[in-house]
């Protein structure tokens, strides 16, 4: 097997026509099966994704096997061709809207997932802030669009024929597209405020969504990002979290 990339808690290998994600032992089995289930559910809706192949064990660690999509990630292409950034962003947003256009009634609900994430932050956020966040989340409308939950250019593969595929569905939910856009905005903003703004302009224009709606989600998605415990951007994220509703 040929190693493709190593990330935090996983090593990704290519094995012929398959891609094998081998997680370290910190990853609970349920998470791996859940990601496989998410992938299967999303793939059944007709969204372009790799096909699920199997969940198995490799040397005692859990591994998720999918088909291998020959191509490059959009993140790589953006870095290599800065002059084509606008074009890639356009494709990126179109594909995201295509994903949001699908429904998968059995996927977990976005609000449930974020409520859980906010509630897990007892050590980072005080009860008051968590209460504000939960209250805000509770007041958001209930929607049922397929949302990737971690949609950023490194999770989009541009196949050799130019077709886009989305991978890494561990955070997939059904819920509000605006929330999903807030996550993408946040992920962009962690590295480039300018690219984030460009993305948001494009998303809101193409989906005909007022920016205020996407923004209402930002404190919530910032909190969910905090709960992933990556810690590199905690200060930045906390600033986003500490806001109050208009009264």
């Amino acid at each position: 097997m040929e190693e493709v990339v190593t990330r935090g808690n996983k090593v990704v290998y290519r094995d012929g026509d398959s891609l094998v994600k081998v997680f370290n032992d910190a990853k609970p089995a349920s998470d791996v099966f859940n990601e496989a289930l998410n992938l299967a559910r999303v793939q059944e809706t007709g969204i372009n994704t790799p096909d699920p192949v199997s969940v198995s064990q490799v040397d005692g660690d859990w591994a998720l096997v999918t088909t291998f999509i020959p191509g490059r990630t959009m993140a790589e292409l953006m870095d290599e061709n800065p002059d084509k950034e606008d074009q890639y962003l356009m494709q990126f947003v179109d594909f995201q809207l295509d994903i949001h256009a699908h429904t998968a009634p059995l996927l977990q609900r976005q609000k449930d997932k974020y409520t859980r994430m906010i509630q897990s932050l007892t050590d980072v956020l005080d009860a008051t802030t968590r209460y504000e966040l939960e209250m805000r989340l509770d007041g958001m409308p209930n929607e049922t669009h397929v949302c990737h939950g971690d949609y950023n250019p490194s999770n989009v593969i541009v196949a050799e024929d130019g077709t886009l595929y989305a991978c890494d569905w561990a955070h997939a939910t059904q819920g509000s597209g605006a929330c999903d856009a807030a996550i993408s905005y946040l992920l962009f903003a962690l590295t480039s405020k300018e690219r984030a703004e460009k993305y948001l302009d494009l998303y809101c224009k193409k989906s005909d969504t007022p920016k205020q709606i996407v923004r209402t989600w930002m404190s919530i998605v910032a909190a969910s990002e905090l709960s992933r415990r990556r810690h590199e951007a905690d200060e930045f994220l906390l600033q986003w979290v500490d806001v109050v509703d208009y009264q």
Partner: protein
Amino acid sequence: MADATQEVLDTVETIDSVDALKAAIQEMRTAEEVFATFDQEQVDKIFYEAAMAANKARIPLAKDAVEETGMGVVEDKVIKNHYASEYIYNAYKDTKTCGVIEEDIAGGYKVIAEPIGIVAAVIPTTNPTSTAIFKCLLALKTRNGIIISPHPRAKKCTIDAARIVREAAEAAGAPKGLIRWIDQPTLELTNELMSDADIILATGGPGMVKAAYSSGKPALGVGPGNTPAIIDSTADLKLAVSSILHSKTFDNGMICASEQSVIVLDDIYDAVKDEFQKRGAYFLNPEELDKVRKTIIINGALNAKIVGQPAYKIAELAGVTVPEKTKVLIGEVESVDPSEEFAHEKLSPVLAMYHATDFDDAVAKAERLVADGGYGHTSSLYVDVNEKEKLDKHQAAMKTCRILVNTPASQGGIGDLYNFRLKPSMTLGCGSWGGNSVSENVGVKHLINTKSVAVRQENMLWYRTPEKIYFKRGCLPTALDELKDMGKKRVFIVTDQFLYTSGFSRQIEEKLDQLGIIHESFWDVAPDPTLQCALEGTKQMKAFEPDCIIALGGGSAMDAAKIMWVMYENPDVRFEDMAMDFMDIRKRIYRFPEMGKKAYFVAVPTSSGTGSEVTPFAIITDADTGVKWPLADYELLPDMAVVDVNNMMTQPKGLTAASGMDVLTHALESLVSVMASDYTKASSLQAIKLVFQYLARAYDDGSDLEAREHMANASCMAGIAFANAFLGVNHSMAHKLGAFHHLPHGVANAVILTRVMRYNAADVPVKMGTFPQYAYPQAKERYVEAARYVGIQGKDDNEVFENFLKAIDELGAHVGIKPTIADYGVDETYFNDTLDNMVEQAFNDQCTPANPRYPLMSEIRDLYLDAFYGREPSSYED
């Protein structure tokens, strides 16, 4: 049922879980049942003591609130606490909230106030203690229990405020545990509370309000404000600037009604800016402005760190140095779009300031700011109060539930401080614009259920007749003398060709000549008068300009004259409107034009049938469209009716018979009408008796003066009766027989009369007529009363009724009425083809509603078919 001695439990000490909350609510329900039995005096004592206690604690509570939340100004929070206790007490001290709160004994109406039960009160961080006091006092005054859900950031002071009110209330006699609170607020508990309570008083941001409204319980929620203040060129600038500063600095800008933007007209912009600076505002330069922008709003949301902070601290957070005493930070900005941070609500002493090229521009900007962040809340205008046009324009444009003029918005919006008709409140409704169920300031009336007790009442009835009814043979010339006395100078006579050519009208003309009154005649009225004929007459009338109209003739001439009278007096009337059907003549939509301003109306009947000389009715046909316009209004009552049998002696046999049977139908229908009264029944009964005594004689011998005279009186009396009690379905059906099959009106009535009577007399009708006076089906009783009055006997009511029907049929037969509709030569196929149409139109006829039995269309159909074929009457009982 609870009584005041019932034991009230108060064992749940801490509400920190769903189980504890449910247990507490369970206990509160018992306390609430006891509280619900308290009278006004007991409640007012509790309200008084609770308000007193809260008032006394206003300073420590204010200190605690600032200390715990880190927001606001102690001295201002003292005012808020003071206001929430004193002003709320003062506003409602005399308001009735228990038992009967309104009573109209004569009108049979009263309103009883009942508590709603348990109020879930969500309290914000911005005004924690004052809002808690406010809501607890409202709950006590309305005999409700209340559970408070404090914000975690202001938990302690909110609970302290509630505890103070609770202890005072209990000391004053309130059941224990009526006021409670969630000790450890979580979303789960707040949501649970909202779904367990009976009503929600939510104050807070959109998330909270949405949660309240989605709980499934009735909610009084409020939403965010984004108050724009316009300063017009005519405003008192010093008053405007200081008012805005006063409001914006109040509790560091945390009142939701507070100004967020000032829109200043160009010609005074510099002066306003100078005044702001002079009074302690700091204008940010472009670089500083940008820094503050990024500080106050993060991703379009309000930075929690700036809420309720003083201006210099906010500046410091933004990395801008301003004098410590700076009252307000002002950013001069251009865009009113939400992408401009300063266009948002800021909940702090930070203000946006805009240029406006003119007043319209200012209003447009304010409109946009309201739409983007403060729909339904509050707006403000500084202007010379004599600038009515500007005030109107502003009021029309603002979609806000409070529009304040020359008033600091924080203090103005909460009411009773800078204005005295807005109810004092800490919860300001934002209407449907803000997604709220109320648009006014929330008060005690929103926390009570009212029971309206309405006792059956009877309508005011009436007995309206022409001002003068003259009768007796030969009375016409004497009656006409009065025209001279009244100073009438120009008389217009409306009559038909026969009466004109045969010289009937000449006797009137001669009399008028004698009296020196000028006159003119219109003699072209045909039977079933047309609108076209009436228009012709009106044209002539307008040219002549009479001050008196004399209608001489049968129903046609009198109806035509009434229509001409209407068009002469009110040339712009529309027949579609005048002819609109009504359920109750006193509640009709159309207001009939006033009559009699130009001409006095005298009706002189020449046949004894229609009674039109004393009725408020007229019917006219549009010959072009075939549409009949039946008009009914007391404005159409003639002023004088002259019943002189000398004018009636030439009635031919057929007319005598038909109009005589018409009189009988008028009398019988008005007698059993749901609107019949003692007054009308007297006329109906006497008319029936006279018809029985004299119709046959008048028919047999047209020169029988006595019979003719009594029939003339019978006609007029029946007219008076149905002018006030109206008719019934007999006339409805007869109208359509006339319209579709050209049966003379009196004949059409007579041929179905006894069948309709039998139908009306049912003891168990499918449906009875709707009118409060009509208590139960009683048509048969009244028919029998008439029968006995006429002299008909029988062993019981049923037999008397049967004998009465027989007598009527015999009378009809005597005067030539045929037994069936078919006997009148109506074609069977055509009758059946038109039947459905006739049925529906008869059902919809204006005469139908007064019928004692409310007819089903299928019943009208059966009646028509029975009368057509002469079938044995079926049972009309349900």
